[in-house]
């Protein structure tokens, strides 16, 4: 009976290792970013604080709001990283906090939903003209 049970942990361990190797292979196979056009990465303070930088998906928000709502009413300057947003401002209802307050949209305790970029991703408008000109989308970098 004992010999029957013995190999089990060995098997699980081997399987787990393979899964880990498999995942690392899959993710290493994407050397360049294909994220959506207009995705904004804001990395004013996040890296220094050891937090993943937030990604703002324009595509998601423009399905639900016209540009004017944020870029006039909420005072977002049309400049990636140009608004110096921090969590204190958001909690007091400025910028993202105008909606992300648990009333209009989910609240600030869901850190991971915004702070979702890989550490070290610089502030950018993803796939903006200059990015695509200097390195064509399919080109290896």
């Amino acid at each position, binding site marked *: 009976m004992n010999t029957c049970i013995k190999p089990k942990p060995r098997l699980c361990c081997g399987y787990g290792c393979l899964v880990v190797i498999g995942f690392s*292979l899959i993710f290493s196979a994407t050397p360049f970013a294909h994220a959506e056009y207009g995705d904004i990465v804001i990395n004013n303070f996040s890296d220094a604080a050891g937090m993943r930088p937030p990604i703002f998906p324009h595509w*998601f928000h423009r399905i639900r709001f016209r540009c*004017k709502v944020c870029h006039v009413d909420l005072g977002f300057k049309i400049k990636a990283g140009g608004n110096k947003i921090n969590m204190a401002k958001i909690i007091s209802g400025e910028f993202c906090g105008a909606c992300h307050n648990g009333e209009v949209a989910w609240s600030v305790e869901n850190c991971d939903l915004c702070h*979702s970029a890989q550490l070290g991703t610089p502030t950018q408008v993803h796939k903006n003209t200059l990015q695509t000109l200097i390195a064509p989308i399919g080109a290896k970098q």
Partner: protein
Amino acid sequence: MQNIFFVIVIVSLFADVSSRIVCAAEPLKGASQEADPNRFNRLLLPKEKRTPALEYDGIHDPANRGITILQQPRNAFKPLAVGKGGNYVDWVKSLDEKKIRPIFSLRDKTETPMLLDLDIVREVKGSMPDVVYPHRQHTEWLDCSNCHPAIFIPQKGANPMSMTEIILGEKCGVCHGKVAFPITECRRCHSKPKNIKRIRQQETSSSK
């Protein structure tokens, strides 16, 4: 005998998992495509890779639990009008056809924008067709104060600009090439054919 049996089990598991890895990695790697140096659209992103899942898009951290909750762009774009560049969504058409209903004001969700149906024609240098700037499509999304007077002085002829400026993110390039349709869609702006006869007449009269 039992040891041999378990070796077989482990080997078969390895084969199973490795085949899964290959299956999952195949659409990303495209090894067979890269092998052919003369394949079509060598520098273009293939259609199936255009709207990737968040975990494979290269800027989201796949280790972040949050992305399992976030909406996938491919799902959101399914009901929308298809476009040529950017998100591969025609946002203006989607709005006109009421496939999306973005709100205009947080205070009053029924508020509708005040539309201005005024086309501005800009005669351009060179051989490209003239530019028609439609206020209507822009006032659907924006307020006058988004553009006037900081980006464009509201006066005819007061806003000289060049494609270089636009590529560098000035003037129209503040939005076009970042969020609104990219500048690769030349003919959406350069849409009014030039009056060749009139240009020739002007040329001949000026040379006399």
